């Protein structure tokens, strides 16, 4: 099987990982296509160097998250403006006591976190150990543990506030 064909098969088989991370950071459909192309390009560039002994899904999470985090750093200003609007809209939804499904609730909660916190939470929910997360995001395991505790506290506060 040629490298191209193998790459296409892998991407299509794991489209859930790529799409879910892209969506967590870019919920709008227009942005989603742009960022997905960026991610696919980085995955393709990194593919020849991918060592088969590493888990494929781990490699996909690592490249996808790092590509998005780099892109977000570039358009930080724009992202800040968007998150203010989003925050405002979500607060209105919470105040109106709108019923929320699990996925919507998750989208709301994750939209309240900053880019690094989102990455940590996603990897933690995927069941990665602190050491693995640290390797993937170039952090120390202690730092990961501290940050995850802060995220949990923040989410609890947010949830309590939304239920009021």
């Amino acid at each position, binding site marked *: 099987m040629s490298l*191209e064909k193998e*790459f*296409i098969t892998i*991407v*299509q088989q794991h*489209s*859930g*990982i*790529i*799409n*879910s991370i*892209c*969506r*967590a950071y870019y919920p709008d459909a227009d942005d989603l296509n742009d960022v*997905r*192309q960026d991610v*696919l*390009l980085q995955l*393709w*560039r990194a593919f020849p160097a991918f060592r088969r002994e590493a888990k494929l899904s781990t490699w996909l999470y690592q490249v996808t998250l790092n590509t998005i985090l780099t892109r977000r750093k570039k358009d930080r200003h724009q992202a800040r403006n968007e998150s203010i609007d989003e925050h405002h809209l979500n607060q209105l939804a919470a105040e109106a006591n709108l019923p929320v*499904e*699990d*996925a919507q*609730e*998750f*989208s709301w*909660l994750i939209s309240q976190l900053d880019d690094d916190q989102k990455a940590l*939470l*996603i990897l933690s*929910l995927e069941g990665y150990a602190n050491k693995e997360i640290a390797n993937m995001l170039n952090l120390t395991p202690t730092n990961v543990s501290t940050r995850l505790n802060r995220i*949990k506290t923040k*989410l*609890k506060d947010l*949830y309590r506030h939304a239920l009021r």
Partner: protein
Amino acid sequence: MHSDNLKAGWTEHKRQAGSDHIPEAEILAVIRQEAAQQHRIRRLLYHSSCFMFLLFFCQTC
């Protein structure tokens, strides 16, 4: 929100995102775009090398 709920939310979010298929044409377009860029870089390097060689050659003659 309990972490179980959070996990359920993430699973549902992934399930919804997973239903979005990435078309082969989109992946191929990215691959071709990268190949074209690599080709442009190689051509630029080749022309720069030729120019440097000619410059050096002319100076020594």
